[in-house]
C-alpha cells in the first residue's frame, strides 16, 4: 500500500487506495512512521526533504487511503455497495486492498453451509467483476486453507508466504525473507 500510494508523489500525484480491513491488525502509526517514511526517504536519492516536506508527504498519503472497517459479514457485503459509490465519485482510486478475505467464513457457514473454496470463489469473483468494470487493481490476503480448489479461480499474481522456521525466517514464493520495522527484506538481496 505504501509503495502504491507514493508511486507518483515526486510528481505531486498520489494513487488513491480503498483498504477494507477484516483482520483489524492494521497499525496506522506503524504504517505512517515506518513504511511510508522509509519509502519517502529511499525512493528518490536525488531529492532531499525537509522534515516538513516529509510530514506533508506522509499526511497526503494517509489522506489518499480510505479505510472501511468491517466487523461482520453484513458490513463486508455492504462495503461492496460502498465501494461502488466511492469509485464512481473518485477517478484517482487505483487500488483496492482487502486484508483477510476469509475472515467471515464461519459466520457465513452458520447461515449456509459451504466449502471454504466456494466462499473464496464467491468473493474473488465479485472482486474480479469490480476490478474489470472500474479498471482497478486489487490485492487481498487469504489464509491458504481456503485455496484447495484454486484451479477454478484465476489469479493474475499469487504471492505465497510459508510458515516461519525456527530462525524466524519465512518464504515468499520460495524466497527467504524476514520482516522488520521497514517491511519485507529478502535474504538473497
Amino acid at each position: 500500500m505504501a509503495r502504491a500510494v507514493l508511486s507518483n508523489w515526486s510528481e505531486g500525484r498520489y494513487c488513491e487506495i480503498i483498504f477494507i480491513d477484516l483482520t483489524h491488525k492494521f497499525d496506522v502509526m506503524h504504517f505512517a512512521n515506518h513504511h511510508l517514511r522509509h519509502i519517502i526517504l529511499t525512493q528518490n536519492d536525488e531529492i532531499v526533504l525537509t522534515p516538513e516536506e516529509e510530514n506533508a508527504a506522509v499526511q497526503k498519503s494517509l489522506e489518499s487511503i480510505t479505510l472501511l472497517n468491517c466487523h461482520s459479514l453484513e458490513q463486508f457485503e455492504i462495503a461492496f455497495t460502498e465501494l461502488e459509490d466511492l469509485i464512481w465519485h473518485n477517478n484517482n482510486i487505483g487500488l483496492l486492498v482487502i486484508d483477510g478475505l476469509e475472515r467471515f467464513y464461519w459466520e457465513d457457514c452458520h447461515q449456509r453451509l459451504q466449502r471454504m473454496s466456494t466462499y473464496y470463489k464467491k468473493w474473488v469473483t465479485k472482486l474480479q467483476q469490480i476490478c474489470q468494470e472500474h479498471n482497478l487493481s486489487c490485492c487481498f490476503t487469504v489464509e491458504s486453507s481456503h485455496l484447495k480448489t484454486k484451479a477454478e479461480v484465476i489469479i493474475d499474481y499469487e504471492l505465497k508466504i510459508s510458515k516461519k522456521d525456527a530462525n524466524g525466517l519465512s518464504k515468499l514464493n520460495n524466497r527467504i525473507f524476514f520482516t522488520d520495522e521497514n517491511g519485507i527484506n529478502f535474504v538473497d538481496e
Partner: protein
Amino acid sequence: MSKLQPIDKTELSEYSISLLNRCHIHTVSDFLNEKSEKLQNILKIKEAQVLDTKKLLRQIFGPEKQTLAQLFSHWISDGCLYKTGIDNLDSILGSESLQSGSIWEICGSSGVGKTQLALSVVINFVISKALPVLYIDTKLDFSAVRIRQMLESRCIGRNVYAGIMQLIKVERCLSAQGVLNILENFEKEMENKNATVMNINLIIIDSMPAAWFLLKANEDQLAGKWLLSRLTNLIYKFAQKYYVAVIIINLSVPIMTDGPLNKNSGDIQTQDSEEYDDPYGENAYSQERHQNGNLRPALGRYWQSVPRLRLSLGYGSKLELDKDDTLRYITVINSCYSATHIKCPVHLTAKGII
C-alpha cells in the same frame, strides 16, 4: 443479516416494508443490492429518494468509513500504549507495547502460571494507571485472596488494597455464549456512556478453552467456530472503537502427530464434508512445530491469526527448574510488528510474575 425495520422520517415505513417483503426484499442487504428502478416502482418514490435511503442504510449498517489521516489523528488523541510492568518482558517487546485496540494472547501448558501472569499484568496496570480492568473468569479461578497476597508481597499499603481491588471488575461465566453476552453488555454500556464502563481500558479473558472446549463435541463444532468468529469480531470492534486493550489466556496443547482429532464428524449436516471434518484445524499442525517443542496454541487454525501478539509462557529446562522452580520463560511466538522467537526469563513468586 439485519432485517428491514421502519426508520422515522424516511421512506421506510411499516407499509413500505410490507410492500418490499412481498417482492422478497427482506433484509438491508437485499435492499442495497436491488436496482433503484425496481425499488422506485415498488415504493412509488423518486430515484433521489431511493438513493438517499440507500445512503442512510449504508451509514447505519455498513462499515465505518474514514481516511487513514483521520484514523491517525484519532489515535494520537485517544490511543494509549501500556507497559506490562514486567521489566524483562517490556524490554524484549520494545516499542510493541500493550496497545489499546489490539488483542494479545498468552498461551502455555496447564498449570504453568498463565493466570498468575494475567493477574500480575492486571495489578501492574491498575497500580500504574488507576483505571479499572474487566476480568472475565471462565474457570472460576479468580481469587481475591491471591490478589491480596500479591499486594502484600509488593509492600503496598493496606489502605490502598480496597481501592485497587475495587478497580478489578470480575465477571464469571462458564460458556462461550456467556463470554459473548458479557462483552455485548459491555459494548451496550459503552454506547450508553456508562461512566464506570467507559474507563475500562483493559479486558482479560481467562481462559478461552475453558468455555470453548465444551463446544468441541461433534454436533457443536461449527457452532463453536461461529461463536469464536463472533467473539473475534466483537472484541476487535469495541477494542478499536473505544480504545480498549484485550488479553486472552489460551492453553498450549500437544500437536497431533497422526490422524484426525474427530473421526466421527462426517455426519455434520452435509456430504463430502472434508473441510468440516477438521473445523478446528487440528490436523494442520501435524507437520509444524513452534519453539515450545510439540505444543501449539489451542482453539485451532482460525484462532491462529487472530491475536496481534502471541506470548507463550513455559518452564525452563529440567536443570534450571531443579535449581529454581520459580523460573519461567516468556517467548514471543507470533507478532505482527515486533521480532519473534525471542524470550525472557521471569519468576513466579508471591508477588506474581516478575
